[in-house]
């Protein structure tokens, strides 16, 4: 009896790499299309896929493209180890396996009618980029869009051209910051939390979406609370060692939660008891 169903979520679907573009010295954006040329289907901003690099391994990577672009799946990947390095050094025309999309995504329904505050650190801007696309393409459904983005240095900033173009959109404020600027850097220097004082925030009608290293998110959530956002209006995207991506294997368990299935996006209220525990 045949057991494999065509849409079995554990079976990677073949995709072809259409383009690999360099974002920074160690970060690349890959555009993939289904091998058979069909549409990939839809995804929600904030969801992730499991990307299978044949002969190397499988990686959970957030989708960083436009949710309304149905011919391509877009991922931004920082090369930090063997599997990510193997992925970003693939060339156009080579195949990878794709499972997913998985996870719950950002609360775009809840954000309608509200100001949206995006706070990202480093590569954390990638899972938030689909939210930005969504807000900008449905501008009347949302209030102001405030993007606060921090990176280690100017050469670590992602999507620099897009950041400049987003800053020119109506009702949109984009502030970027780096921890260390060279002498030629004319922008802001300081961690991302130092940008809050320049942001035009209306906390009572805002929803914040935060993504970056956990330690950064701890500081950012504290700052957002200080500015008056409620813990239920602050959403964080968590990263753990996702393997099965459907809540079976338990590799990504975080306290009582399976990040892959219940998350990766949670409210700060849900995560707060765990966020400040050492080595959880």
């Amino acid at each position: 009896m045949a057991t494999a169903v065509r849409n079995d979520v554990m079976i990677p679907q073949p995709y072809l790499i259409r383009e690999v573009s360099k974002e920074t010295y160690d970060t690349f954006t890959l555009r993939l299309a289904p091998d058979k040329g069909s549409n990939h289907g839809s995804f929600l901003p904030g969801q992730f896929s499991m990307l299978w690099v044949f002969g190397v391994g499988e990686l959970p990577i957030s989708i960083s493209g436009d949710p309304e672009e149905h011919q391509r799946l877009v991922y931004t990947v920082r090369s930090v180890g063997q599997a990510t390095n193997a992925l970003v050094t693939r060339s156009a025309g080579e195949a990878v396996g794709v499972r997913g999309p998985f996870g719950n995504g950002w609360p775009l329904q809840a954000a309608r009618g509200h100001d949206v505050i995006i706070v990202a650190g480093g590569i954390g801007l990638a899972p938030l980029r689909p939210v930005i696309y969504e807000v900008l393409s449905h501008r009347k459904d949302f209030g102001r869009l405030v993007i606060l983005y921090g990176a280690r240095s100017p050469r670590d900033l992602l999507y620099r051209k897009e950041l400049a173009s987003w800053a020119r959109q109506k009702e949109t404020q984009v502030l970027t910051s780096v921890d260390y600027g060279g002498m030629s850097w004319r922008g802001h220097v300081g961690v991302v939390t130092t940008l809050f004082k320049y942001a035009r925030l209306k906390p009572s009608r805002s929803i914040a979406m935060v993504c970056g290293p956990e330690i950064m998110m701890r500081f950012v959530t504290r700052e957002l609370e200080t500015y008056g956002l409620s813990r239920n209006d602050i959403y964080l995207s968590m990263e753990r060692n996702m393997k099965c991506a459907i809540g079976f294997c338990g590799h990504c368990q975080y306290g009582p939660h399976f990040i892959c299935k219940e998350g990766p996006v949670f409210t700060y209220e849900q995560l707060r008891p765990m966020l400040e525990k050492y080595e959880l």
Partner: protein
Amino acid sequence: METLERIIAEHPFLADLDPSFTRLMVGCAKNVRFNRNDYIFREGDPANEFYLIREGKVAVEIFPAQGKPMIAATLDHGEILGWSWLLPPYQWKLNARALENVRAISLDGKCLRNKCEENHDLGYEVLKRFARIIEQRLETTRMQLIDVYAVR
């Protein structure tokens, strides 16, 4: 016309300051301007004042023992620049350079120290406000030190 007293009273650093204290501080204040790339002060120079930034961006620069100078922080309108005037040896520990044309109010450190000695209520108020700024900058410096964007 904007008076110095009103400008000082409206600066976020001195928000809600008792008007009698503002009047005392005005006696130590003057308007200053710096052109882009001007050094406002340099490491080792006497620290005789501090600045309420009204417009423009200032880079705070440090010089590692070896290697190129780097910008450790930037300060913008509504912020204050400099606290080395508060404590001996009254000497700047860093460089400050205007990244843009800067307008600021300069407050004479010696003049203000004297007024704070004469009026401890004023002194306590000034120190509380500086303590808050120092605490915030210490926290952001710690965050820079632990490299919050690093992949772990």
